[in-house]
């Protein structure tokens, strides 16, 4: 009898809870076929369930966002993208838990948007909310008029998630000698001393929107420290020890309109970032240099087509020739651009889109044509391609990974 009462109480509680909690999300079927090999392998046959569980009260709220990926190998990958609580006060808010934090005005590039690390399990191909990972910590926002001061404290360090070594998207690495890896220094223990802190002041005004930010953080990408030692069997052994190092940076961004144009800019200055050198035997193959990363861009509409273009530059200050080129840096300054064109028709049920990254240094590109069709209010269809041009660099390294894909998305 007691069990029956308990079950009834639980059922009643669940029903009451379910009625007041907001459930939304999507179910997605995603299939991708390679064009760059003879067999035209289906490298993506994936089902995804994304659920947002949210509840808002007068002075508080919570959100939990689990996501489940099901692959053709019948494997399940579970991710808790966000799980946080909000507390609202008159002039400030507090958010505690796992959360995605997005800063800056750039689209598709990460300059001051460095609080949430990236999940590069499929390079830059997923939607950006899937690339960005949640971070565990607290965010405090103080509001005065149209100004906001934001402080973020992260006691738990979350690094960039790189693809596994057998993945299509594992980045190419060039070494004189095949290395062995020592991962003993890669982990950062959660502690007060090891915390990351970020601050941002932002304003939204009639003339211009802007943000000023600073951060004391760990480099999301590990520095590869190297050592050479003689092998007992003869020859030399190269050992790489990935280690996350502290970074300090300051930057800002702005956005304003002039007639039909939106102009955007964003920049960050890193006070000391580690770069690998050509000779792994000197200073563990690492040199520290200041580094600047910035973007200028514009959005406008012409002949009913929406355009967006961005120029992005990265520059290593006080550059030295001993710095080893890699996929991201060929030499002292590295230039890239993005371009987006989008045309909507049939009462916004059909969208034709073309997006591209172009890497000036390596003459490489990623071109992403896409067709989006709203089959109904709930069901969206997407067909597209990812075309990699070049032979080296950030995009050229994947020139065998050209792909066509289709997505069916049911939103609820």
């Amino acid at each position: 009898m007691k069990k029956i009462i308990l079950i009834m109480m639980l059922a009643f509680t669940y029903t009451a809870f379910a009625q007041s909690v907001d459930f939304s999300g999507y179910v997605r079927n995603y299939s991708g076929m390679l064009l760059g090999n003879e067999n035209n392998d289906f490298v993506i046959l994936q089902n995804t369930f994304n659920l947002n569980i949210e509840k808002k009260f007068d002075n508080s709220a919570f959100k939990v966002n689990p996501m489940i990926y099901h692959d053709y190998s019948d494997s399940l990958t579970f991710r808790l993208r966000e799980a946080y609580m909000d507390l609202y006060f008159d002039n400030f808010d507090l958010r505690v838990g796992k959360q995605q934090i997005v800063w800056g005005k750039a689209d598709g590039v990460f300059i001051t948007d460095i609080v949430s690390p990236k999940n590069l399990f499929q390079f830059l191909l997923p939607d950006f909310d899937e690339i960005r990972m949640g971070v565990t910590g607290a965010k405090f926002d103080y509001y005065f008029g149209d100004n906001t001061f934001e402080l973020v404290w992260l006691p738990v360090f979350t690094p960039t998630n790189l693809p596994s070594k057998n993945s299509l998207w594992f980045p190419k690495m060039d070494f004189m000698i095949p290395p062995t890896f020592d991962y003993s220094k890669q982990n950062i223990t959660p502690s007060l001393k090891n915390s990351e802190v970020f601050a941002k002041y932002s304003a939204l005004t009639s003339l211009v929107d802007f943000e000023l930010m600073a951060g004391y953080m760990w480099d999301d990408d590990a520095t590869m420290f190297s050592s050479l030692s003689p092998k007992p069997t003869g020859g030399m052994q190269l050992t790489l020890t990935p280690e996350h190092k502290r970074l300090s940076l300051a930057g800002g961004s702005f956005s304003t309109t002039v007639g039909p144009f939106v102009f955007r800019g964003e920049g960050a200055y890193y006070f000391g970032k580690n770069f690998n050198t050509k000779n792994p035997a000197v200073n563990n193959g690492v040199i520290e240099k200041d580094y600047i990363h910035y973007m200028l861009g514009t959005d406008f509409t012409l002949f009913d087509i929406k355009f967006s273009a961005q120029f992005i530059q990265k520059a290593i200050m006080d550059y030295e020739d001993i710095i080893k080129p890699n996929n991201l840096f060929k030499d002292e300054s590295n230039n890239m651009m993005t371009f987006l064109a989008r045309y909507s028709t049939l009462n916004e049920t059909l969208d034709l889109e073309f997006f591209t990254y172009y890497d000036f240094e390596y003459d490489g590109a990623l071109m992403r044509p896409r067709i989006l069709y709203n089959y109904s209010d709930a069901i969206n269809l997407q067909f597209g391609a990812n075309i990699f041009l070049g032979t080296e660099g950030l995009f050229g390294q994947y020139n065998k990974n050209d792909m066509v894909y289709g997505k069916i998305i049911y939103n609820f």
Partner: protein
Amino acid sequence: MKTLKISVLFLSFLFLANVTTFAQEITALQVIEKVYNRPVGDDMTSNLKMTLINSGGNERVREIKQFSRDFGKVEKRIMFFVKPADVKNTSFMNWSYDEEGKDDDQWIYLPALKKVKRISSDSKGDYFMGSDFTYDDLGDRKPNDDTHKILREEKLNGEDCYVIESTPKDEDYMYSKTVTWIIKDKWIGLKKDFYDEDGDLLKTLTVNKYKDIKGFLIITNTEMNNIQKNHKTVMELRNVKINSGIPKSKFTERMMTRGI
């Protein structure tokens, strides 16, 4: 992502003045100015439902919760998208200025990107959320942007109306002319025909229902019929609240990201 720009006072053309009848003959410009200058409440809250119906009779539904407040020199408006699911929690904010020549400021919050983006208010000829209303159709087009003449006076739906033809001074404007049936004394645009650049009838706006809320006549159901595309949009306002005292803090980036 749908286009979510608006540069206008949403459904503002629906608010109408309680003005006494004229003893003397009125000009076309005066009629339009009476509609434009009607007294309105200081703030408004409402739920907007748009039903888009294509030539095959298939329907798509968009639902929005919206708040607006007149701060004197600037009117601020914030909209939260409720349906369809793929735009849920998207929000849009518009600051519209009285100052001559000053463009609206507009921002959109995209929940997937978790980012508030400033957008240009220049494209007033764009269609709002795939509907048959352009941003300009929904706005408070200034009387002096057109030249007006009274074509005739006639009854429509039992109401005595002025029939006004308005021709834009800007030759590049998206319509070559509009013809509006305005109810005498109530100053409601009861029906409006839109003609394309070739002079052919393009769209017809019909008011299906209006009612008195706190002394303001508010149109709560309209229908825009695109004759050439055989596509129409029915727009309904529900839960309308006037002068409820919406706080200034409602029209901020904080609220855009927090949602309703």
